[in-house]
């Protein structure tokens, strides 16, 4: 395994990753940075790259960043584990969960 430098970092907040960016689609237009009312993101220092998630602990899951993104497939929600739903198949009775 290639040695990765280990830094002394504090714990990541919970939630830590409210969304996942897909850099192959996202063109870094920063529209999501603008629509987020609590400023979870800042623009990426590198132009054209997806924004940086700076304040994930302030996300209230309003969905505006994902729903207003002009390039579908650039950004997806990443529900924290405790927030994921349960449901049941009516025909089989099998209990299912959002386990993506």
């Amino acid at each position, binding site marked *: 395994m290639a040695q*990765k*430098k280990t*830094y002394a*970092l504090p714990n*990541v*907040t*919970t*939630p*830590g*990753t*409210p969304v996942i*960016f897909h*850099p192959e689609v996202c063109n870094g237009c920063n529209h999501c940075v*603008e*629509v*987020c*009312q*609590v*400023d979870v993101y*800042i*623009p*990426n*220092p*590198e132009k054209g*790259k*997806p*924004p*940086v*998630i*700076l*304040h994930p*602990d*302030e*996300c*209230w*899951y*309003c*969905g*505006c960043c*994902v*729903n*207003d993104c002009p390039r579908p497939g650039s950004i*997806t*929600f990443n*529900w*924290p584990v*405790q*927030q*994921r*739903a*349960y*449901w*049941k*198949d*009516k025909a089989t009775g099998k209990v*299912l*969960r*959002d*386990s*993506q």
Partner: protein
Amino acid sequence: MTRWHDFIEKDGKPPAWPYPINYDREQEIETDVLVIGGGIAGCWAAISAARKGVRVALVEKGDSIRSGAGGPGCDHWCNAPANPLSNVDPDEWAEHMAEPPYSNGIGIQIQCREDWDTLVEMEQIGGKIRDTKDEFTGAKGRDEKSKLMISPRYTKVHSYIPGSQKPITFKSNPEGKLNNVVIRVWGSTFKPALKKECKRLGVKIYDRVMVTSLLTEKGVQGARVIGATGLNNRTGEFMIFKSKAAVLATAGDWSLYVLNTELAGYNTFRSRNQTGDGVAMAWRAGAALTVMERTGIMMLGTGYKHTWYGGAGDASYENVPIVDANGKRLPWPTQGWEDAGAMRPTPEDMEKIIKGVQSGEYTLPFYGDFPAMAEVERRVTWNMMLGEESTTKNIIDSYGKGGFDPARHLLQNYNFIEGTSPSQWRSAGGGPVVDWDLKSTLDGLYVAGEQSYSAGDHSYAASTGRYAGRKAAEFSRQAGDAKVLKDQVTLEKARVYAPIKRSDGIDWKELHAGIARAMQYFCSEYKTESLLKMGLDALKEIEEVFVPRLYAIDPHKLMRSLEDLSLLNHGQIILNASLARKASSRMLNFFRIDFPKVDPPDWNKFVTVKLENGKVKAGELPLDYCGNMKANYEAHNKDYASVYKGK
């Protein structure tokens, strides 16, 4: 490279602050009408003031394109009894709505009279309010001609008001036809349309600016409001707004009692930005506030329970039958046509359900039986209603990606299994006292939306914002110029920037939890004179010992730190109002051990509190101080022009 620590790991250093830092810069803006808060009420206030031809500045902490509770969208346009499909008289509906004690009869009357006009204007500027693409033909409540879609909510019963789950017969609807006062709307289109219209009308928009204080004539507490100060929460620049009239529309405070500032997404039903800034600045400026002693316990969206709208049976799950784990139907209302929109079981049905769970008649958990619904009704609920709030669109999308198909799957309901004990979490109500112009007790200061002491809904915010905007514009026309006192600005600047002058101490999250803890100990279920006084002492100690240690490392955290100071003020206001009410009250969810009598007749009145020369002054107002709602509304709106016809 989208997470902060990715940068550390790659470059060995965090990314630089992406915006210019301008703590030492100051900007002065002059306007006729200043709107504070660019949510639903604020945007409407700005639009209606601008349509009166005056200069308008709109200041918003986030970005007004999607900010506020209503930014992500809205699926119910509540209380539009003047709509063409309604079967009740707006004035009679208003009276019914204002019947519970401590309601804001003035705001409610405005809503009932002008809500439909507001919705029509919403459509004019690009909001979608009809099923124009015929996607839901055949759904119950859809009017073929107008293509409006009535919601079953409030169709016969009005289930928000405790004890009113029985059908109510209105004089204006003697045959008991469906009331048809709530309209299903495509509310995710609303906020961007509002911002666009503000821009088109030349409203000067200041996004990412937190208003920190109101400026008063000669700096005197209780004098006319002549402007405000603000902080750009990206650059740290200081802003001075000079105005002839101001509309306060920053909504309420939903995190005062919340200990944990993480998990905000599931901790509060409002975003982090809702921290009672408006009520705190109105208090410091000397406005009289009322209903401040009321707090509500929320079972939903607390972080200790499932996420709001995440489970079948939550609000907006219209017409979804609730069944037990074996598919047995429960006497739980469907919020639909068959039970006239009732949202909670009656106390008798609840008793039956609890007994059934204990005896094994009903098996936990419960589910929402989507597959049992008619296809078009399922689409209306799942795709249209839930799709029209960005917040719930996530739910559809995420569940969908996870494999949920409402035609085949039953969605879990979380009642009972997540516990029935309330969490130590409260929402705080109340706001400035207003008159029939929605003017506060301070000249030049108008109030709209959830900022006014009223239950919040989108259409209430829209119609009261639209109303306050035109009244503020009228006032600004005849108001003279006023001079801002330099000292008032200097003092505020010192308060605002204190946390960035320090590099050590306690951060906003720790202070927030400290304030919440004090409120939980001294101002929750069990209230007594001595506990409430201990609460005031506790907040004073926080103010004197810990606030001077508050530090912030960038403009964003500086804003969060200043919000803590609003919360601190808000706590002080609640404690003072609680001390002033020496009786218990059910409608206020206010119980004092030392005054156990619930709603004794001599305490059926509004308690008011305000600051005068820095000292707290309590007062009172009769419960019916708004007078005859219909007559007063008409007397104050002789020139009301109904739907806007200008360009």
